[in-house]
């Protein structure tokens, strides 16, 4: 992976700039905004700092609020949950930004395209064909690898068969296809789980269907390492991703091996989706909210801003929402539902806005 074709353009572009250490006026920022780049930069910093502070505060709150028994009992329990939520938030934020860059649009997310429901389906099919005993006693790493593999194949197929053949005007078709695929996968899951032996079905439900309220902490160490590795890969290619976001032709013209970056990004997306779904189950609209709110707040498409900001928004939504719902409103498990309602409304807004912009001729 080191010194390959993908990385080189980024390095050669980064070095002549030579402003990395201080980082007060980064060269790429200036390209888009000739005036007030510094001010804009400072504003973005403030936004990220504010997001960070809010996230940190909600994390602390989740740990200390409403403690009624011994601290030594509460802290490890909540610590595990917090860690899982943070891992999920980072996975969702990063995977959504990556997916949107690769597919060159702002409405698609892996979850909307049916990745999450496919993950649940794969688990169900595995239990149905191999039996719950075989699946549960298998090495979790092996299990995870197989599940990621299926997601990856799905992502690549989707890309080859649908995404690449459609132009940006066909986003709506893609979203519709994704929504239908999601329904299809969850119907299939239901069907397979009906076919299952009732005992197997119960085991499956208990052990594989995590939710925001009941985080599957067993997988935490493994998934934390996986997410960290993915993040490392992404961080090393932030500038290449900026170029890819300009579109296929432009990216190739600028010397980036576009299809290779796309393939690798989809691989990372598949891994991250698997992580988040394994830990807390499907969250259809969290990624959409995180990536788009981050972009809107920052007013930029540069990945070194959007990736961390999207992660922060996702973590904030999960942890803050959990604190608010569980401890303030006493509403625990419904967080996924609330996020889906808010996210669904937001997607509606995006669709309507896009429709109006297209009608006015602002967008293709």
């Amino acid at each position, binding site marked *: 992976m080191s010194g390959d074709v993908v990385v080189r353009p980024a390095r050669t572009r980064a070095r002549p700039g030579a402003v990395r250490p201080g980082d007060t006026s980064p060269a790429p920022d200036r390209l888009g905004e000739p005036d007030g780049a510094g001010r804009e930069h400072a504003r973005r910093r403030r936004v990220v700092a504010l997001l960070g502070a809010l996230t940190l505060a909600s994390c602390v709150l989740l740990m200390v609020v409403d403690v009624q028994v011994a601290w030594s009992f509460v802290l490890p329990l909540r610590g595990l949950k917090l860690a899982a939520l943070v891992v999920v938030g980072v996975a969702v934020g990063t995977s959504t930004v990556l997916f949107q860059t690769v597919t060159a649009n702002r409405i698609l997310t892996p979850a909307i395209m049916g990745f999450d429901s496919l993950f649940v389906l794969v688990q169900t099919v595995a239990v149905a064909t191999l039996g719950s005993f075989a699946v549960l006693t298998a090495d979790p790493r092996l299990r995870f690898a197989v599940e990621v593999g299926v997601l990856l194949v799905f992502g690549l197929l989707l890309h080859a068969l649908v995404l690449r053949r459609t132009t940006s005007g066909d986003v709506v078709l893609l979203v519709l296809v994704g929504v239908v695929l999601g329904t299809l996968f969850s119907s299939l899951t239901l069907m397979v789980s009906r076919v299952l032996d009732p005992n197997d079905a119960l085991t499956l439900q208990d052990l594989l269907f995590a939710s925001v309220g009941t985080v599957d902490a067993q997988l935490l160490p493994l998934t934390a390492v996986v997410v960290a590795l993915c993040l490392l890969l992404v961080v090393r290619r932030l500038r290449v991703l900026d170029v890819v976001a300009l579109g296929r032709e432009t990216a190739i013209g600028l010397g980036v091996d576009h299809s290779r970056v796309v393939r690798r990004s989809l691989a990372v997306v598949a891994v991250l989706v698997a992580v988040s779904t394994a830990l807390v189950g499907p969250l259809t609209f969290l990624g959409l909210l995180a990536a788009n709110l981050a972009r809107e707040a920052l007013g930029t498409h540069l990945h070194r801003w959007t990736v961390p900001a999207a992660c922060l928004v996702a973590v904030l939504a999960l942890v803050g929402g959990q604190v608010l719902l569980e401890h303030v409103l006493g509403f625990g498990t419904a967080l996924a539902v609330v996020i889906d309602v808010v996210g669904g409304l937001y997607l509606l807004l995006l669709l*309507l806005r896009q429709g109006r912009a297209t009608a006015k001729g602002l967008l293709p």
Partner: protein
Amino acid sequence: MTTTARAPRRPDTHAPAPAARGSAGRRRASPAALAGAGALVVVGAVASMFVGAADLTPADLLAARSLDDRAVQLVLVSRGPRLLALLLAGSAMGVAGLLMMHLTRNRFVSPSTAGTVEWAQMGLLVATISLGSTSVVGKMLVAVVFALLGTALFLRLLRSLVLADALVVPLVGLMLGAVVSGVTTAVAYRADLLQTLGQWTAGDLSGVIAGRYELLWLVLAATALAWWHADRFTVAGLGEDTAVSLGVDHGAVVRLGLVVVAVVSAVVVVVVGAIPFLGLVVPNLVTLLLGDDLRRALPATAVAGAAFVLACDVVGRVMIHPYEIPVGTVAGVVGGVLFLAVLLHARRRGLGS
């Protein structure tokens, strides 16, 4: 299924937009398609009669000497009502989808992609919480009102917006439905009614026996009403301006259609539960084959809808015999695949935008 499944591949049989034009090819296809769908319904009905947890063969029925015989009772109490419920729900939901398609002038709008079904579920939940142990009829009335208001809201939303892409319309409807059902789920969770809600969200006919399906006859009346006014819906499907200039009161037709769609959706949700994709896939396949003249397409849609639900139900009962998979789940899988085929087919031919 064979007749309907072949439809998307026929190159010469798709209409550019809801319009009352029928080519010669379509006219020839009409009796054949109807006969095919009808045959499917008959085969499905016979299969539905004799497939199930309890053993029943035609010979048992012939051997029966009195009404109290076990085989006769099985038919009268369980299999017969179930078959009727299947036929009524399937045909009515198909017709409701066809009406929505004409009212919105969009092939991809149906009660399940406009939020109608989700509003009906919310109405049921509200009725259950606020009215307590009201009769089924009371709950149904509330559900009808909710479905009506929700669908009217959707139509109003569409009118006030300039939508460049026809595919945005079903997407907006789907999202609206998702939001509504999210709120319903949250409320049901709060009120400990999640299990009750499950009955209305997943179409299931295993609980349908004599005495528990009779409300469904209402949808027959609604469907008949739609057929009676079929020509008006066809003209309304040409657009408001054309309809008015042809002497049709567009607003009145839209209101009538809304009432039919809301009643059908709410009653089916109350008695059977939601059957995904039914109102979407069946009208699309039928109009691909027959064109958009409602007087011709409506009976065919009713027959094809019944055939679709029958086929899904029989498959669900055979797969894990003697247990069964709910019809809504099977329909979600079969209908999802069919809808994807229709969607990609339509877009490839430049339709839908």
